[in-house]
């Protein structure tokens, strides 16, 4: 709902009809003078051709519209928006995302496994403005890319830039789980959780996944494990960041769900298979239910002002009116 900070300015809308009345009643006059223009044996002087009449009409319409917009801007159009404010750190949730080359398999409704995972994370993040979200990438090594933060823009920016093969060919799942846990054990958060998204088995890193998973049990960190993708032959298409070469072909996708279930069991967590995007959504729904979002502390009222766009439009229309009148019609006075 738009309201006006200075509605008195709308009185100025009466100025244009008033001006017309003053001209009509000749209280005000135009700058004009009689002048005979003619050319012996020349064609008759046509000062009021249909084209000029139309141009004049257009110029008047532009001018009246511009004046109306300027008056509306002066009246101070403003909309009040309620914005939720959050204090504290909320829940700490880290996404441990496998970025090994097999995550490029395009078996998630035409998209790759990594794209499906990113899309799910983005939707989840949009519902959790008061919580601290972090990102761990898992390859042949594991790295914390974003510490748990409420800066959604920074989190999403790094998530979007994450690419296949960024951390090598393997899947150091145990190391990834340990890195994520290490940044949640300080108990700075109302609840702590890690969502592990992988399509493979642990084949790199010095820490066994079950050992890392037991940390979760000890420190009260919830763990959600999901195995992304289907089994069998799947098409793969990605660019290897180390060589810059495009890799395409078919991948024989096999991974042991039992190994992933064991990890979840060791952490008293959940395992869910995600052969398609709908199943993946269910993982986020489950995480959302198990780790409730932070409640907003209060709402604050923000002003959204509209003077600037109205004035921009008014300036354009004033300029067009002038151009039509002075340059197209060739008005002299």
């Amino acid at each position, binding site marked *: 709902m738009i309201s006006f900070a200075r509605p008195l300015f709308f009185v100025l809308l009466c100025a244009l009809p008033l001006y017309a009345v003053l001209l009509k009643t000749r209280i005000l006059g135009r700058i004009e003078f009689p002048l005979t223009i003619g050319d012996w044996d020349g064609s008759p002087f046509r000062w009021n051709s249909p084209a000029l009449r139309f141009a004049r009409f257009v110029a008047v319409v532009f001018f009246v519209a511009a004046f109306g917009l300027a008056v509306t801007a*002066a009246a101070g159009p403003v909309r009040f928006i309620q914005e939720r404010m959050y204090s504290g750190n909320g829940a700490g949730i880290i996404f441990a995302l496998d970025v090994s080359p097999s995550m490029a398999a395009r078996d998630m409704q035409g998209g790759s496994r990594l794209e499906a995972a990113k899309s799910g994370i983005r939707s989840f993040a949009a519902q959790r403005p008061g919580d601290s979200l972090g990102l761990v990438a898992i390859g042949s090594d594991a790295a914390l890319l974003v510490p*748990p933060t*409420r800066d959604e823009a920074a989190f999403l920016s790094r998530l979007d830039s994450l690419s296949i093969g960024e951390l090598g060919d393997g899947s150091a799942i145990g190391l990834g789980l340990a890195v994520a846990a290490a*940044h949640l054990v*300080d108990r700075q958060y109302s609840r702590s959780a890690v969502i592990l998204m992988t399509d493979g088995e642990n084949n790199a890193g010095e820490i066994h996944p079950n050992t890392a998973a037991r940390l979760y049990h000890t420190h009260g960190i919830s763990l959600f494990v999901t195995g992304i993708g289907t089994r069998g032959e799947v098409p793969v298409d990605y660019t290897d960041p180390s060589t810059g070469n495009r890799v395409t072909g078919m991948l024989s996708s096999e991974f042991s769900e039992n190994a992933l279930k064991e990890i979840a069991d060791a952490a008293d967590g959940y395992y869910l298979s995600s052969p398609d995007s709908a199943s993946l959504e269910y993982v986020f729904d489950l995480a959302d239910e198990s780790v409730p979002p932070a409640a907003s502390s209060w709402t604050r009222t923000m002003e959204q002002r509209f003077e600037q766009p109205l004035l921009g439009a008014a300036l354009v229309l004033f*300029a067009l009116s002038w151009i039509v009148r002075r340059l197209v019609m060739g008005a002299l006075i």
Partner: protein
Amino acid sequence: MTSLFDRPEYLALALPAIPAAVFVLVRWKRMASLVLPALLNTGPRPAVSIFRAVVVRTVCYALAWMLVACAFASPRWGTKLLPVRQEGASVLFVLDISRSMTVGDVAPDRLSYAAEYASVLADRFVNARVGIVLAKGSGILAIPLTADRRSVRDLLNAVSPAMLSSAGSNPGSGLEAALASFPASSAASRTIVLFTDGDETSGSLLEAARSVQKSGASLVVVGIGTEEGEAIDVYPGASEPTFYTTRLQEDFLRQAVRIAGNGSLYVNGSDAGSALDVISLVDGSQNGSRMVYSRTGVYRYGEVLAAAFLLFAAGCVAGGRVWRKRM
């Protein structure tokens, strides 16, 4: 001048009014030189009166256009106090990692000293969220605001000028990056702690300080270095070394703090107890909910547009009224 407008670049839109007015007057004059002599003392209105009316009207219209363009640039002057509820604290460290920060006039060198200083502060801000922005030729958010002290300490232990490839020294860009990194939905107080020697090769720290003032954040500048300074080879790869003595620019940094307002503070990082001043500034906002007053500029669309309408009305009336009077 630029501080009067949110978007001073739009002021350029006022300029076309000048050639437009000149165009109208020159064209009028050319036409008048042909036809007005015939009207002199014979027409319903003397030629001089008509010309004067045209000039007055044209100037009024041009000025009215200029004022609308000024309004488009979002003018604001004067300030008002707005109550803002805050809970918790968020602190962004801006570390100047330009080459001048590698000199050793404070041991072991300015950058290591600043990193250690920041590390001590981070440990003391127990309930605050802390983040790190690195500033060199440009400012980059390295660690977003987080309660995870481990990430903050890891970066501070590894910080070096090689972390950013952009050349130069632009601490102002660090402030701008920090301002953009405070989440809008956060109820926490906003403090930026800038560690710099004040050397600036591009950008404007003072301009960034104005942005800090407008945002309502507080700025703490920790000056790193000494007034005597130390020489640094400006082009280390060149065959002939070119030395430049880099000094702590205290006056410049104090000026930035004055502009930033909002209870901002300057401390010399080498002074004993300076960290306590910074800690006490942030400590006050770490716990509990409180109401603070933020000074904010007042938009003046109404005043500027009212002046534009008056000039426009004067332009409309000028020609007609003068004519009627003389008829």
